[in-house]
């Protein structure tokens, strides 16, 4: 008898599903909105005056758990924009075939040069097509949409003082402390966008707390 009742119930369920509009997102025509931090491929960036941001410090190469980045440093030379002497890369090879998408390389980048992209990489016909060299990384900057995360944003995001819901009653001494003191990397690159953008994920994170209270 229970089976019979369950049968009727499940038949009802399929009818209800039948009458509902399909949840399918019509993929190639419509692309499901990707989250801000959706990340797949990579790009190297230029700064506003047009100089390459990457200084060839090897931080990303060393932190990569999967050993996919390989950098060949160029000799130090003067920047055409600022005139100061700084490092450059001669070759930057990113082997996307073995990337695990952990975003650690973006996180350690001191100059916010390496970012991940929200536009996915095209599935390739051969393995070699998935190796991003300097040319492709700089081309990706122009062609594709970057993800939210940059090195400085990620570090600011981890700062407990940024983006907390303001508690007006008792201004705690911790909240009064200036944020940049704990984030030396962010402090050293003032070019990175500070508070308003960085507050975004933290605000998003605080949403469930609001809903719960």
């Amino acid at each position, binding site marked *: 008898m229970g089976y019979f009742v369950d*049968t009727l119930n*499940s*038949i009802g*369920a*399929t009818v209800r*599903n*039948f009458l*509902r*509009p*399909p*949840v*399918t997102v*019509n993929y190639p025509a419509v692309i499901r909105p990707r989250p801000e931090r959706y990340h797949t491929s990579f790009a190297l960036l230029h700064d506003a005056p047009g100089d390459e941001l990457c200084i060839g410090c090897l931080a990303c190469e060393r932190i990569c758990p999967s050993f996919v980045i390989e950098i060949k440093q160029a000799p130090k030379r003067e920047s055409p924009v600022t005139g100061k002497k700084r490092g450059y890369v001669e070759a930057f090879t990113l082997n996307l075939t073995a990337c695990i998408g952990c975003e650690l390389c973006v996180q350690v980048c001191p100059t916010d040069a390496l970012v991940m992209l929200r536009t996915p990489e095209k599935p390739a016909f051969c393995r070699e097509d998935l190796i991003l060299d300097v040319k492709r990384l700089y081309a990706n900057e122009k062609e594709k949409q970057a993800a939210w995360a940059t090195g400085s944003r990620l570090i600011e995001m981890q700062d407990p003082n940024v983006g907390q819901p303001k508690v007006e009653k008792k201004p705690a001494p911790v909240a009064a402390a200036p944020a940049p003191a704990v984030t030396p990397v962010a402090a050293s690159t003032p070019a990175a966008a500070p508070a308003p953008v960085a507050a975004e994920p933290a605000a998003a994170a605080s949403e469930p707390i609001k809903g719960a209270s």
Partner: protein
Amino acid sequence: MIFAASLAAAVVIVVLSATALALWYERKLAARMQTRIGPQFVGPIGLFQPVADLLKLVQKEEIVPMGADRVLFALAPPLTVIFALAAAAFVPLWPGVAVVRSDVGVLLVIGFGGLAMVPVWMAGWASFNKYALLGAMRAVAQSISYGVPLVLAAMVPVILAGTMDLDGITQFQATHHWFGLWPIIPGLPAFILFLLAMLAESNRIPFDIPEAESELVAGVTTEYTGMQFGFVYLAEYVHTVVGAAIGSVMFLGGWDGPFAPGLHWLLLKTLCLFTFIYWIRWTLVRLRADQLMTLCWKWLVPAGLGLVFLSAAWNQTGWSR
């Protein structure tokens, strides 16, 4: 003679093309029940999907596994289609017209339905594959078990109409009442019993343990490639389409309908029954083998016997005249 031959040809072609359409229809239906869209890119609203499938299946390489019985292996899939089709010859299309009008139509239809198990067994045996053999064994055990309630359910319209001629049964329904609706007590349960047994005969969900994917890969079809697999796939749908047609003839009055009795009513009823069958298919989960057998032998067989006696008693009351 020429009329009979052309009618036969027309029925075969219509059934086969209806089956192709049914492939598309079923995929769309299933998709909508799972809040998906289903075939969409191939032709308008995915209508050419069966064509693409057919074209692909035709091109695939044929592989005969080592150690297989080559003759049986090659013969079984086409035979499944032919046997599944054969029952369609007895369906009355419009008043007084069927490809074959036989006085024992009901028996023949059930006989051809049962015969469809022979190539399945052949395929399972010839594949030289344990999954295929297990699948075939289960299919045959299940099919012959459910043969008994099927016969008993089919006997109810025979008793009520007093004839085994399918056209006679339809005419009786046209002049009196549809057996699926009236008399409600032996009629409606017998109709449900018939549908259940027919689902089980054609190995569809919820009675599809012969090709339970999680246990038996693809059942009897495990070793079949390309068009050989296509035949078995096709035969399943032909079986369901023809089964739905026979169900509508025996219980829903076949060609009978208001305004103008004829073929369109038969097609409409078949479509409704087909939809109902696939609705069930995409709703229910698979029964376990022991539940399946228990359901058949402990419940459906005595229920079928009871329905037979109830319908006989209904006849004797004289209310049907």
